[in-house]
């Protein structure tokens, strides 16, 4: 067969019913699923950090720096799935130098940069400055050079300037909370504002994205906190772990309520798109939505955490449960992004047909490429934890 047609036939074989030609192939694949997932982890981890700093939840103190460094590690990678999806790394920065207010993606560049440079970097810098000064005097070799450069050549650690740092760090965190909301609310806005797609177009989308971001970020920091303590052979602070789990439980309830409200609203309104969406949910998204997102990723953790609010088994059992729950929540939120991004492209805008999607193993949009961008942040985090070990910091009472 003519190779020009071969590809078309393969594509046509996965179509059901009537579908427009440009809807056969999905334009947004697994890398675009990763983008909101990773951005959500950033926003969620930061919000957990701000719980300690701004809302004064003292028991969360052991996770404060870990949460910040986690947010930073994932932030550095957040744009990479987009760049690799577009395949134009040498033009990627043009979005920053030719901004336009009508382009949601162009604004993302600035939201991202604001959050990375003004919020995350500054907050981490203010938090670490005293330690950088101390370490620059005691460390040797590569570490010494890095600490010296980052302390900006100043070794002023007088109580007055430390107090000022703390105050400025606090202000940055206060600015950071709406910024984190903006960052991830905006990601939801990108989907929510596409009025041609009934699966995406809802004003609830930014709010749903925001709360699911908090859920995933908190779960990630909880899992990391357990893993880091395990690897360091340290006894874990159970009060801290219980508190994270408590907040995770609360935020999952809100997230679940928001998502349910959105669906109930859809069902009650039953607009012309309702039939195709019902078919989408019961058909193509059956496994990823009903089983993975709602069942495994939400109901199971919600039930388990709910029981643990009343019944508290021994610490090591609770720790194991929290670990499993954290992983399940992360899987669930990944599938939530999957269902939004992939689900929204599976049905035709004619509402009369479906295409299907199969994730390939290799290739620029394949499973391996996605895995790389999911694993890289953990390497960055490991490097940061080695370079700036939170457990060697001078204790500061915020």
């Amino acid at each position, binding site marked *: *067969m*003519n190779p*020009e*047609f071969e590809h078309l*036939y393969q594509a*046509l074989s996965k179509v059901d*019913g*009537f579908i427009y030609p440009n809807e056969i192939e999905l334009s947004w694949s697994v890398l675009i699923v990763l983008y909101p997932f990773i951005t959500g982890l950033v926003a969620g981890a930061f919000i957990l950090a701000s719980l300690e700093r701004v809302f004064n939840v003292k028991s969360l103190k052991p996770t404060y720096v870990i949460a910040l460094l986690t947010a930073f590690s994932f932030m550095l990678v957040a744009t990479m799935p987009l760049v690799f999806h577009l395949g134009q790394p040498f033009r990627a*920065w*043009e979005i*920053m*130098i*030719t901004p*336009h207010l009508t382009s949601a993606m162009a604004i993302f560049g600035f939201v991202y940069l604001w959050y990375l*440079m003004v919020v995350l970097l500054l907050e981490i*810098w203010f938090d670490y*400055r005293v330690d950088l000064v101390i370490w620059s005097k005691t460390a040797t070799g590569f570490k010494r050079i890095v600490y010296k450069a980052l*302390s*900006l*050549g*100043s070794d*002023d650690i007088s109580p*007055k*300037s430390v107090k*000022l740092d703390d105050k*400025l760090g606090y202000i940055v965190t206060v600015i950071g909370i709406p910024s984190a909301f903006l960052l991830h609310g905006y990601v939801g806005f990108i989907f929510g504002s596409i009025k041609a797609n009934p699966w995406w177009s809802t004003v609830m989308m930014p709010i749903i994205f925001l709360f699911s971001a908090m859920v995933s970020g908190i779960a990630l920091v909880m899992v990391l906190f357990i893993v880091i303590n395990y690897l360091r052979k340290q006894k874990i602070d159970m009060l801290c772990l219980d508190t994270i789990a408590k907040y995770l439980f609360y935020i999952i309830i809100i997230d679940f309520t928001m998502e349910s409200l959105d669906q109930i609203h859809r069902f009650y309104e039953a607009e012309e798109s309702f039939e195709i969406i019902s078919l989408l949910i019961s058909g193509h998204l059956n496994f990823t939505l009903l089983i993975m997102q709602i069942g495994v990723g939400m109901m199971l953790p919600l039930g388990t955490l709910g029981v643990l609010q009343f019944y508290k088994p021994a610490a090591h059992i609770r720790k194991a449960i929290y670990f499993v729950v954290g992983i399940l929540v992360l899987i669930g939120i990944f599938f939530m992004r999957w269902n939004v991004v992939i689900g929204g492209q599976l049905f035709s805008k004619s509402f*009369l*047909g479906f295409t299907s999607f199969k994730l390939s193993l290799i290739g620029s949009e394949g499973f391996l490429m996605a895995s790389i961008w999911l694993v890289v942040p953990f390497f960055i985090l490991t490097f940061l934890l080695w370079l700036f070990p939170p457990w060697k910091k001078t204790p500061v009472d915020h």
Partner: protein
Amino acid sequence: MPLHLKRLLMLGVLIVLLFLLLKHLLTPVSFGQFGHYRGKAIDEIAAHQVKFVGNKACVSCHDTIVTMKNEGYHSDLSCEGCHGAAYLHVDHPKLEKLFKPDSREFCGKCHSINKARPEKAVTQQNIKDHHPEDKCIKCHNPHQP
């Protein structure tokens, strides 16, 4: 103001200045010439080779077949819709032969039963039952089916 804050401020100003400098140096020259895009992009896109040559190019050599097609049910179809893009064939008719589809599967792409496809517009057949042992073109001339 403590020294480290002064330096931080200086670093911030430096980053902003660097950004403005990069913006000035790296914005493509023709950007904004006509609108919010690179003016030269239009010429670059126009310079792309056109791969579909259109029915008129086919008529110049294959006039009998095109006339036959235009008198039949397939009159609305473009030749290249079945035979593929003909830009190479037009330049080198002997060397570059076009695709001649003859499989049942190929005809079935349009003519198999599909409830979402209007019956009035396209004749539909259950290609599993309808003379499954023969090729469609044995009975139906694709240029005048």
